């Protein structure tokens, strides 16, 4: 299958290792991957913060950039949910029927990584090796808008060497919420405190999720507390294999960032 990578602005800018891991994983599974360099941002931050006039050109741009893609896969439940769930709303509120038709169709070809692996490729074991104790945080948009369900857990359970530990109150939001974290920092922090506590209570070496935005938030809290617990994107765990995991700085890159922050 020819897969178009939707890297998302946050991943492109701050977490390039996640996009590379996703590309490597999809290739390992025998697929062709393509990255259209014209892509930038899906417009979620603008739209959700109230800047809907500013978001519309970005939505139209996304449609142009991905119009010819067979399938679009992203390492972010949040951005995929935005495309699938809110692009049609954006078109509706703008009264643009042509755009509505196009985004509705586009949304059906846009997937978050774990749901793509399980539902489309029907792969449960991606042949990964990751010898660490890991806990999984289901991000709100992946869980409630995309309904990815157990897809990420199924994939994690098949990773060799990985010990999966359950996260208490996992369904609770970590408190990121995009610009919510800056507009209501105290409330966001109170939510984060409980999430960080839950993660630490598991005794895991790291917390994983399908969204680097939430992980940036949880990781930021873990790092500030000098907890010694890291965060790592699901794609990086799934891309990791026995041959490259030993000593590879890339696969545990995110964990090293928080470890360095302790020094």
């Amino acid at each position, binding site marked *: 299958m020819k897969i178009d990578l939707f*890297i998302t*602005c946050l991943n*492109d*800018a*701050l*977490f*390039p*290792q996640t996009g*590379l891991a996703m590309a*490597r994983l999809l290739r390992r599974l025998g697929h062709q991957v393509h*990255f259209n*360099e014209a892509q*930038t*941002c899906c417009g979620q*931050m*603008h*739209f*959700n*913060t*109230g*800047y*809907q*006039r*500013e978001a519309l*050109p*970005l939505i139209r*741009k996304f449609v142009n950039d991905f119009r010819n893609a067979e399938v679009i896969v992203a390492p972010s439940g949040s951005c995929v949910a935005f495309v699938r769930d*809110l692009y049609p*709303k954006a078109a509706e*509120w703008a009264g643009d029927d042509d755009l509505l038709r196009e985004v509705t169709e586009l949304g059906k070809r846009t997937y978050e990584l774990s749901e793509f692996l399980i539902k489309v490729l029907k792969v449960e074991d991606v042949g990964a090796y990751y010898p660490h104790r890991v806990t999984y945080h289901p991000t*709100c948009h992946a869980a*409630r808008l995309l309904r990815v369900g157990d897809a990420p857990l199924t994939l994690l359970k098949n990773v060799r060497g990985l010990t999966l530990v359950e996260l208490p109150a996992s*369904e609770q*939001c970590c408190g990121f*919420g*995009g*610009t*919510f*974290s*800056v*507009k*209501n*920092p*105290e*409330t*966001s*922090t*109170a*939510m*984060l405190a409980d999430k960080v506590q839950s993660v630490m209570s598991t005794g895991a070496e790291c917390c994983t999720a399908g969204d680097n935005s939430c992980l*940036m938030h949880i*990781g*930021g*809290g873990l*790092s*500030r507390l000098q907890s010694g617990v890291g965060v790592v994107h699901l794609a990086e765990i799934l891309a990791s294999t026995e041959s490259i995991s030993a000593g590879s700085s890339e696969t545990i890159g995110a964990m*090293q960032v928080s470890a*360095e*922050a*302790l020094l």
Partner: protein
Amino acid sequence: MSAGGIRPARPFPEAARDTLQDAQMRRNLKHATTTIREKRLRAVAELPDWEALRTRGAELKDASLSDLAEQLLTLEAAVKRCGGQVHWARDAAEACRIVTDLAALHGAREIIKVKSISTDEIELNAALEQRGIQAIETDLAELIVQLAGDTPSHILVPAIHKNRAEIRDLFRQKLGAELLTDEPKVLAEAARLYLREKFLSTKVAVSGANFAIAESGTVCIVESEGNGRMCLTLPDVLISVMGIEKVLPQWADIAPFMQLLPRSSTAERMNPYTSFWSGVIPGDGPQEFHLVLLDNGRTDVLADEAARQTLRCIRCSACLNVCPVYERAGGHAYGSVYPGPIGAILTPQLLQLEDENANTLPWASSLCGACYDACPVKINIPEILIYLRGQITPHKSHNLENTVESIAMKTAAWIFNEPFRFEGALKLARTGQGPLVQHGAIHALPGLLGGWTSSRNLPAFPAKSFRELWREEGEV
């Protein structure tokens, strides 16, 4: 006074900053919401057709709303036919005037009240007090809030922020009760003794309405304690204040709501008391019945197609109990008698998006979506929050914070519109971040972003972006 109205005194972030400091309140809230959350899930799981019921509930409300004027006229005619009187109130002031005039006309010095959020919305208790009439709340939690001189912090459990020991002390002080323990039974008995005397001696009662049935002119109240039943049957005069969105066309429509409402609100299969009454019956119950139909901004909400579903709300409070923001910040942070996720969309809309403080409420959400999942009438609260943010942002007053944000957002959009600008901005950021980075992370940021680094580290921009690495390495 237990009435707080719907006009927040402060912006949400500012109010939440204070409520978050109250560790006792946060413990009380966490305990209460966690308990009811789990109970609700169990009660809902018992019904195999829950999703179909939710859909039915949403459809019935939508059908009634699409035809609201007609339904209200039918209701008015039916109430009159049964010997009741109908009053139309455009806003809170008008509704208060109608009720206080009626109470004064009957020479009432005291009136008893069934817990009613619509009367809290219009600040009826304060209006009555100005006319020298004392409103007595008969719902236990409302009474607690009233005695404490506090405001409700939850739609269904207004005193959710208080624990038993706090309530015992309050009853000792205000009711002169000699309470030795804070056992629920003992606390309830103290309130019962006080309220019985009021039920038997007060001539005028005021209630809200959970539903009204247009075809028969029947009003419905759903409650748990029986205090409502007492107020609805014992006094001579009954005045019910009802938001116009509460009307349903016919009797058959009420069945799904009798399943949806109790399970969603108190996690019970059925609530203990459901009262229906149509007009007056000579020699039985109140001999005078007044129905006040309250608009107070509702027709404006109705006119907005994108946000109209807000009016489906049956005030069950399920969204409050699952909301992580409500659980931490508490009901008072919302500054309105409608707190939590539903309050975050209803309050600013009732105020026509013209109240600056209420206009901060649509941002009091991480958009986690738990409220939408819990809502028994499928109000897509996260979607309406986003819609309202879009309506409010272009009109926000230009204080410094808004201006800085607006410039940042517009600049970001300009950058994202062209990939070369995005790449250039990343290079610039990488150079610019230099002095802020310590051991691979950023610990303190200036300005608006300082809110982030007050409690969290931020990863530094890496040496290369994805697109640069992709170009260089290609075959990764």
